[in-house]
């Protein structure tokens, strides 16, 4: 572990300029926060979220050094186990997240009017919860990034995974409305943010207004709690998977087309399916299917797709056409 400890110290020192940049960005966000919370709740919370996103996204690029074959010749021949090397980079990113979020949490205290925060105990508890959830989400984004073979693909996956819950929630919302699963449209709770980010929104809001009961009510909602637990499990599993994924990285594949099942191969059909939930027409589904095929060709940089690609595309057509059938709409394509 000695090499790992020494390398962590070295790597953290080298990351200081990046950390300062993150802190500067968060400082800008803090300066944009209105001093008064009352009447400006939405702006305050959205800016807090922006700060949180800065804190998470930049460290998610911790593994970008491993997306260059020449770099790998150095890194993977150094006398350190890959698992430890990955752990050092993961922990360095986690430390950055901790530093930036602590800076933001303290900064908010100074920025808001003296009596804006009603319940400091709850505020501290929520800051800790936010940190824990950010670290979980960070693990998931690291997995997305390390599944890619290039940094450009990695960044795309990170963004795609961040937006994915929004896309899925919107699709579910659309389906719920269309199939009349519930009389009322799903409340603001399903606006699509990853559940942990939603918790931060609610949490910050409740901490600031000092309404502890509102928060506990949220946690009494079994649907919310089950989704929260699911999110935590997914993120925790992703963190472990990311470390094993990094250990088993095939250096020769770096800079090649990103072929992971956690990448384009899954994200493209899922996004296509989410979009299909807004059409409920055969024509719309087929059109989206064609777009999916084109996207696949773009990703493969070839018109010749693999058998597994066609299988995934076939699954998309099956599900989307099934959804159309369930929607009870007549096919637009057939006269």
């Amino acid at each position, binding site marked *: 572990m000695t090499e790992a400890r020494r390398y962590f110290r*070295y790597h953290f020192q080298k990351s200081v300029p990046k950390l300062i940049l993150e802190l500067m960005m968060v400082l800008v966000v803090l300066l944009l926060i209105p001093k008064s919370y009352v009447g400006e709740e939405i702006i305050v919370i959205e800016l807090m979220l922006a700060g949180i996103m800065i804190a998470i996204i930049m460290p998610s690029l911790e593994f970008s*050094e491993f997306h*260059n074959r020449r*770099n790998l*010749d*150095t*890194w993977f021949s150094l006398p350190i186990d890959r698992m430890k090397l990955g752990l050092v980079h993961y922990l360095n990113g986690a430390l950055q997240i901790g530093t930036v979020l602590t800076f933001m949490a303290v900064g908010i205290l100074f920025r808001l009017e003296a009596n804006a925060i009603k319940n400091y105990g709850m505020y501290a508890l929520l800051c800790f919860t936010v940190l824990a959830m950010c670290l979980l989400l960070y693990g998931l984004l690291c997995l997305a990034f390390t599944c890619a073979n290039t940094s450009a693909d990695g960044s795309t996956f990170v963004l795609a995974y961040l937006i994915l819950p929004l896309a899925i929630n919107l699709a579910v919302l659309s389906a719920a409305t269309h199939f009349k699963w519930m009389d009322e449209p799903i409340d603001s709770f399903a606006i699509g943010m990853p559940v942990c980010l939603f918790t931060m929104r609610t949490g910050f809001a409740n901490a600031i207004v000092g309404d502890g009961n509102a928060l506990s009510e949220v946690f009494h909602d079994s649907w919310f709690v089950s989704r929260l637990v699911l999110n935590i499990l997914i993120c925790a599993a992703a963190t472990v998977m990311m470390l094993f994924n990094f250990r088993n990285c095939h250096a020769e594949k770096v800079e090649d087309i990103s072929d992971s099942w956690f990448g384009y191969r899954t994200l493209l059909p899922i996004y296509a399916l989410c979009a299909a939930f807004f059409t409920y027409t055969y024509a719309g589904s087929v059109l989206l299917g064609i777009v999916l095929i084109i996207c696949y060709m773009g990703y493969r940089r070839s018109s010749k797709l693999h058998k597994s690609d066609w299988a995934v595309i076939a699954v998309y057509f099956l599900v989307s056409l099934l959804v159309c059938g369930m929607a009870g709409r007549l096919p637009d394509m057939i006269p």
Partner: protein
Amino acid sequence: MIEVSNLSHSFGEKNVLQGINLKIRDGEILGLIGVNGAGKSTFLRLMSGILTPKSGQVMIDGLNVQLGEARRNLFFLSDDPFFGTGTTADELYELYETFYPNINRGTFDRLMDIAGLQRDSALSKFSKGMRRQAFTALAFAVAPKYLLLDESFDGLDPVARERFKKQVRETAEKGSTIIISSHALSELEGFCDNYLILSETQLISPEKVADRMRNLYKFQIVFETVPDASLFDILEPQMVHIVARVATVLVSGDKDVIVPKIEKLHPLLYDCLPVEAGEGLLNTVTELAEGGEFA
């Protein structure tokens, strides 16, 4: 000792190395020879733990090279080594210092000064040869037990090349094992203690190359008139060089069989000259590779 057993690797469906078995003794300078694309870099990357073999393993002093601990005494210098934008030689030294605590700052500074390289300048401002010299300075400062050098002569000017060879010899004299790959035989001729040849996914062992080299003879033969090259066909020479009435031939085999054959050519006189180290290596390599005499 480096022990390679049943090592195979492929890229997709293309086999690059197949069933390689090899033992490398300590303290040798071993030349790794092969044409472009023969798999030299892949072989060195497998030996450094960068690539994970499809099958087989590389053991360094009894430890699988895939373990970080096994690489404590190993340094791999790739054909195009890493440097981040804006990274200086000093920063690179700091990185290596974290992994090799016994790295010698004095050696690094001395070699950088000899090469006339600024330690606080970004490596990206250096030419390819200068960058390579900075990395070789690091390699020699680390002075690892096992030093793997991939196409290390590339980009070096003749003076830097000689300096590099001298450093390699000095490092080997201290007990390091050095494996150095090149597609240019002329660079390795007379420099390495032994040679490994990679051809068509297979490896010819250093022992086999050395045996063949040991049975190599150079004869200088003088004739009354200018001889025709075809005259020497009966000797099956590896090389014939004719200047006026004097022919120099490089022949492999049993000397007692070769000499009577030369006498049958009715020369005025002939003499067996010492074969310079590395002389005829190209012919040996070609002959062994074409004959399929793999380890």
